[in-house]
């Protein structure tokens, strides 16, 4: 699929290993790397994006801003967007990857952002990848970038997932098999019956974590589900079918039987350090976080609310919930999801990156364990190198919050 998308962009056939210079459909920078991006544009003496309508500045990492330094940085991005006529997503609108999925990314597009989880939009059939501030400055200024066409690894998932098992468990299982460097420089393609039946919410979870195996993109074929999603977002005209050829060449193929996937947890400090929740059940946690670009969408919050409704989290647990976007928050308020979570003891924080990367609230104490629905459990990731970060699905997170210790959601009565 990478060769198809990049070939379409280049207007010729391209093959893995080749370097292409390609037009960029959308490029975004967020408040964590935006200031450095603007510094580089200034050095380049570029005052305006090549395509302001395809350039988006998104405030999501520090929401709301905790200090004057960050406020000043955010004000600079806000002002620059206004002056250049670029698009802008205000703090509280949502996490960049959710904003891109809701409003911009479409099949066949090249999407770049100053964040490694830009791969999320691969779920919509976009060649979406994260880069550093300098590459993004050049993409904003020139409207193009250079890419090495990646070789592809096929992850085929067949059959039905057991109740209580979700996309997050599938991707943690896949990364456990691939290893954190197993797809370095490669494209992951998620195919098969299980993927076809997944909603966009779930597909975004899979693509989001492709980078945790080192992958450059995590692509999913665009199909009727994608079309319906784009139509619901007012982007129906952008639909095009992107799917691998029947005889597509893969460097490696892996099959996962959905019915064998178990609720899975990644132990500190690497994402491939996975085991079934059932093998580690009972491990005490002190904090649970449900949110992020991986698992902060409506369906994720609904799954957690279903488990927690009418109950209360363990007295030993602090539960923090952060919806991925304002739209998610509104929908979750309207259907009672937020009320159920708050009644159960959750603190709900504004849409943003929140607890995930350790810079804004929810930092665990020394020796504590935090179970999160995010994508990284590196040492110090949640703000304290003397605490441990564990990754799991929203269902496992909610079950764990209820019991105060790691709990298989299938074991709840």
């Amino acid at each position, binding site marked *: 699929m990478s060769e198809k998308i990049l070939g379409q962009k280049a207007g010729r056939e391209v093959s893995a290993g080749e370097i292409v210079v390609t037009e960029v459909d959308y490029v975004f920078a967020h408040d964590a790397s935006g200031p*450095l991006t603007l510094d580089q544009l200034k050095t380049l003496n570029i005052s305006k994006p090549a395509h302001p309508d395809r350039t988006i500045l998104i405030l999501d990492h520090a929401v709301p801003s905790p200090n004057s*330094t960050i406020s000043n940085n955010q004000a600079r991005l806000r002002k620059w967007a206004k002056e250049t006529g670029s698009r802008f997503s205000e703090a509280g609108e949502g996490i960049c990857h959710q904003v891109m999925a809701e409003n911009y990314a479409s099949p066949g597009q090249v999407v770049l952002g100053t964040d490694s989880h830009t791969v999320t939009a691969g779920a919509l059939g976009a060649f979406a990848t994260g880069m550093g501030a300098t590459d993004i400055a050049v993409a904003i200024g020139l409207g193009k970038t250079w890419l090495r066409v990646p070789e592809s690894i096929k992850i085929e998932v067949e059959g039905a997932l057991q109740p209580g098992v979700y996309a997050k468990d599938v991707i943690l299982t896949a990364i456990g098999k691939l290893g954190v460097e197993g797809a*370095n420089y490669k494209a992951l393609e998620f195919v098969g019956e299980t993927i076809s039946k997944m909603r966009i919410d779930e597909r975004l979870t899979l693509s989001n974590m492709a980078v945790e195996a080192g992958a450059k993109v995590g692509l999913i074929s665009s199909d009727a589900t994608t079309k319906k999603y784009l139509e619901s977002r007012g982007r129906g005209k952008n639909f095009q079918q992107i799917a691998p050829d029947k005889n597509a060449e893969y460097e490696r193929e892996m099959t996962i039987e959905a019915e064998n996937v178990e609720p899975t947890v990644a132990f500190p*400090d690497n994402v491939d350090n996975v085991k079934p929740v059932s093998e580690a059940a009972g491990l005490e946690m002190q904090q649970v976080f449900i949110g992020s670009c991986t698992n902060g969408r409506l369906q994720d919050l609904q799954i957690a609310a279903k488990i927690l409704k009418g109950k209360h989290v363990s007295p030993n647990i602090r539960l923090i919930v952060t919806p991925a976007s304002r739209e998610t928050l509104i929908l979750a308020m309207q259907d009672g999801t937020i009320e159920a979570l708050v009644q159960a003891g959750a603190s709900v924080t504004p849409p943003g990156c929140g607890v995930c990367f350790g810079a804004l609230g929810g930092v665990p104490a020394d020796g504590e364990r935090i179970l999160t629905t995010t994508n990284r459990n590196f040492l110090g990731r949640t*703000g304290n190198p003397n605490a441990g970060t564990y990754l799991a699905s929203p269902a496992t997170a909610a079950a764990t919050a209820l019991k105060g210790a790691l709990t298989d959601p299938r074991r709840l009565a």
Partner: protein
Amino acid sequence: MKTLNGRAWKFGDMVTTDHICPGRYFHLRTNLPELAKHTLEDARADYAKNVKPGDIVVAGRNFGMGSSREHAPVVIKVSGASAVVAKSFARIFYRNAVNIGLPVVICDTSRIEDGDELSIDLETGKLIDMTKKFEIKFAPMPAAMMGILSEGGLVPYIQKHGDLKI
């Protein structure tokens, strides 16, 4: 490009961008000299305090795993290191390092020990461990990236060529 000489600072496998530039110092990202005081803090707290200009970061597999934060190679450069040598690199870190003009070398680092005096010639692809008296040959960087690195990074490259001519 001139020869790089310096002391080896040895690190293990899977050094992440959170080891190199912890997220908790987010507020310092627009103050690079201050941010660089925390370089590699969660891998070796002694590094940032004692690193000397020209020193060389030596690591195992998949150095720079994780975030696309360019601040990770930037703080290594600002800390004074002249290069990073590793068995392998995470994709985004490698590209970011080249873009900001920080030389990155891929070779078998097993025999290099902490404190060894190293000398690296990027053009001939040769690393000499002066302390242990052995030499490691390494493959040159892909041409597209060498073109960027030899201009000192992507910004000077664009300033010179006016476009991406990869």
